[in-house]
Each structure stands twice: as C-alpha cells, then as structure tokens.
C-alpha cells in the first residue's frame, strides 16, 4: 500500500484488461459467423473460463514477467543466487500480483452463470477432473515461465520478450476447432495450451477426449525439461548490468 493510487488503479485496470479477451471473442463471434461446433452460450462459457484462468495466473505469477527482466538488466538477480533457496523458487514465489484477485472473482461468477445458462448438470467426476486440469495447467504455465526466465538470462535486454510470451499464451484463448492439421496437434499435445481453458471447458460440456491424457503427461514432462534448461543456463550465467 506504499503507492495507494497505483493500487486502486491497478485493481481496476487488471480487471478491465482481463475482460478484453472475452470481449474480443464476443466481437469476433457476433460480427462474423463464429466458430464451428460452438454455440454462443458455449463460447460464453469458454470466455468465462478464460477470465477465471487469466485471474489465477496473473494473481499467482503476474509480477514475474515484469520483474525478472529488470533484475537481470540491473544486476540484482545476482542477489537471488546467494540466497539459501533455488533462485527459480524465489522468482516464482515473488510473482504474486494482488491486483488480479478481482479477475478471479469475476471469472468464477461468470463461470457459474454460464454453467447455469447452459443447463449443465455437473457431476462429481467432472469437478475432480476440472481441478485436476487446473493443477496440471498451472504446472505447464510454470514450465513456460521458467523458460521465459531462462531466455531473460540468455538475452538480457529484450523489451518485446513479454509481448512475445503473451502472444504465445494467446493461442489458448481460442477453441481447438479453429486450428487444423499439424497446428491442432501442437495445440492439443506438443505444446498443450489446451490444458488451460479448452480441456476444462470440454470436461464441463461432457466432451472427453484421449488427447487430455496425453496433454497431462506432456505438461509434466515439459516442467522437468524447463527445469533442466534453467539449470544449464544458470551454470553459464554471467552478471549483466549493475
């Protein structure tokens, strides 16, 4: 609360910013013929899940993308290396962004409304699978953040890296039916961004798929791979800035 005006504006702006993607989805859907196999009510559910998921990731890890580049450029990253905990743990735990909590609430409310609007009866196994994918999704997101931090250490000064990360993540903002062939395969399995929004929504819509299992396994594998790359990069790290 040291910067109170920034805090108040931050809560408002984060919520508004998070509503952008669902709004873009709505505008595309209403001004064009929409997406195949998705009704308007189902797209609303997808958008609500998108809002909910964005709130979770921004609240838990929102500050990381901003802080890591500054730390590496100014040299204050070196301080993390002398602490008695792994540097990556320190980075990940310092990512908490209080401003996005409102987005989680808004997303949860929109999610419940969409489910009621669609008349879906949610079974206990769906709730279990839903939370399972939330956890797997978080692990996969963490693996991408670790890769992002690794790139920051390697490149040091790249202002667009955050934009690029956000654009890559934006693949998950659209249902799989948008993509065809190889790209759908990438979306569902190779770089399974579908675990964040698409698969949880499919679970709620009673549309299970074998790709869900593959995506879970790949997500866990990518987490280990990202940690290996991070450790390799740390060994080659030479301080920059200061």
């Amino acid at each position, binding site marked *: 609360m*040291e*910067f109170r*005006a*920034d*805090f*108040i*504006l*931050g809560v*408002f*702006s*984060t919520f*508004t*910013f998070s509503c*952008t993607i669902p709004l*873009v989805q709505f*505008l*595309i859907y209403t*001004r*064009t*013929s*929409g*997406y*195949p196999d998705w009704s308007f009510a189902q797209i609303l559910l997808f958008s609500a899940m998108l809002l909910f998921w964005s709130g979770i990731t921004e609240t838990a890890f929102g500050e990381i993308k*901003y802080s890591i580049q*500054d730390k590496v450029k*100014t040299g204050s990253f070196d301080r993390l290396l002398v602490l008695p905990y792994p540097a990556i743990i320190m980075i990940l735990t310092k990512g908490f962004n209080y*401003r996005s909590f409102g987005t989680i609430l808004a997303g949860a409310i929109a999610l419940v409304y969409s489910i009621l609007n669609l008349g879906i009866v949610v079974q206990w196994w769906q709730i279990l699978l839903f939370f399972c994918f939330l956890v797997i999704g978080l692990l996969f997101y963490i693996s991408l953040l670790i890769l992002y931090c690794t*790139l920051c250490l390697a*490149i*040091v*000064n*790249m*202002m*667009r*890296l955050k*934009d*690029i990360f956000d*654009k*890559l993540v*934006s*693949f998950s903002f*659209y249902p799989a*039916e*948008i*993509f*065809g062939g190889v*790209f759908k395969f990438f979306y569902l399995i190779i770089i399974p961004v579908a675990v964040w929004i698409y698969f949880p929504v499919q679970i709620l819509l009673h549309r299970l798929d074998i790709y869900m299992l593959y995506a879970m396994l790949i997500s866990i594998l990518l987490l280990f791979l990202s940690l290996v790359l991070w450790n390799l990069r740390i060994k080659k790290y030479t301080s920059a800035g200061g």
Partner: protein
Amino acid sequence: MKLLSETIRLHLKVYLYYRWAFFISIIIDPVMLVLIISIFTTIYTNGQQEIILGYSCTQMIWYFAAVRFYYALAVSYSDNELSQDILSGNMIVRLIKPIHVMKWFFSKSAANKIFAFFLEFLPSFFIFLMIVYPDFLTWLSFIKYLLLMIPAFILFFLISFLIGTTGFLLKSISALQMVKAFFLQFVSGAFLPIDFLPETARRIIGYMPFQYICYIPARFLLNMPETAGWGYFLRVLAVGGIWIVILYILCRIYWLLMIKKFTAVGC
C-alpha cells in the same frame, strides 16, 4: 540536431550489443501469423464468406501482420524506463546531463526502432510474404505505410512520455501503464480492426489520435479503396502532424508541472 543524432548513435551501439534479442521476433512472428491464419480461415470458411466488414481473408490476415509490424516500428517503452529511473533515483543523473530527458528517451526509442526496422520488420515482412502472398499490396501502398509509421512512432512515444512523466506524482505507474496498454491496443486497432467495434465507439475513436498509430497505417498497407489517391494520405499526414504538435506541447507543459514534484528516491 547534432546532439540528438549523437545520442541515437550511442543507443544504436548499445542495441548492437544485444542484437540477438531482435532476432527472436523473426521466429515468433511467423508462428503468430499461423494462429491468425487458422482463426480467420476457419471463420471465413465456416461462414462461407469472401468479405467480412470490407476485408478479404488475405487482407484480414495481413491486418494482423500489420499489428505485428506496429509493435516493431511504433511501440515505445519510454514510460516504463522513465518510471524506473524515477523509482531508482537515476533521474538525478538524467537531469544534470546536457540533454533534455525527453530528447534522451526519444533518441533511445528512435535507435530501438531503427534497429527493429532492419532486424525485426524487414525479415518478418519477407517471411510473411512467403507464407501468405498479399495480392493487394503495391509498392506505393507499402511506401505510404512506411511513411505513416514515422508519425505513428512519434505519437506513441509522446503518449508513453506523458504516462511516464506521471511517475513524478505517483512514483509507481505500473497500473497506469496497464491502463494505457489496454486502452491504446483497443482504440488504435491493435486488438481488432476498429471496424469490429460498434458504430458509436468508431465515431468517438475517429476524433482521437490513436487510430493513426496502427489502424490507419494498416489500411494503407492493405491498399484499401480510400487509400488509393494522394489526397487521403496527405490528409492523414496532416492530421497526424497536428496531433504530434498538440501532444508535444502537452508533454512539455506536463513535464514542467511534474518536475516540481520530483524528489530523489534511492541512489
């Protein structure tokens, strides 16, 4: 002018040291284009439409390619750098240098854009050409687009500098930066072409300078009907120039007001 050109050269040398950072875009931008191609090919095929809101499928895809170019050629991070200098106390050093802070950050942004033009824009443009050939594109429309990106960059810089100067008052402006990013992306047409917005919103945006940053230059790149002659081009340049003068005067006045609130934080 000599001082400005020397500081631009200085920053170019700094960016030359981190030149590999610019090459990342060459890999990532085509991947983003694939996403755009997938989305709009599906939308156009699903609706069995050849034209949506005046855009053919190829033009719609290239609109979003123009948005990628906008990030390379126009977007400036001066607000963030200014804010960080204020918070860290580096502003003291900036203020005693024989160059105005605004000129310093402008030269830094200009150097970044010069680098980005050769190492981000040109390679991405040629890769996009190979992926989706723009049958509508002509040399004239391309040159007009490049010429319009110069005032687009200046406009974006002035807006960023205005936001960054607020750091003297608020100290931390991260939230304000988010508001600016969200607002600018929406009203400049970086999220979606402004044609997707309701009529009332389009009319309001028409009175603002933001569409000259992304949306209108993109329409020149797409060689849309209204961009055919020189009349509209010169009118856009003139209006963009007027907005640059207005924003420049605003920046100078705002700077004079805000600098009085400066107290060094940290050293």
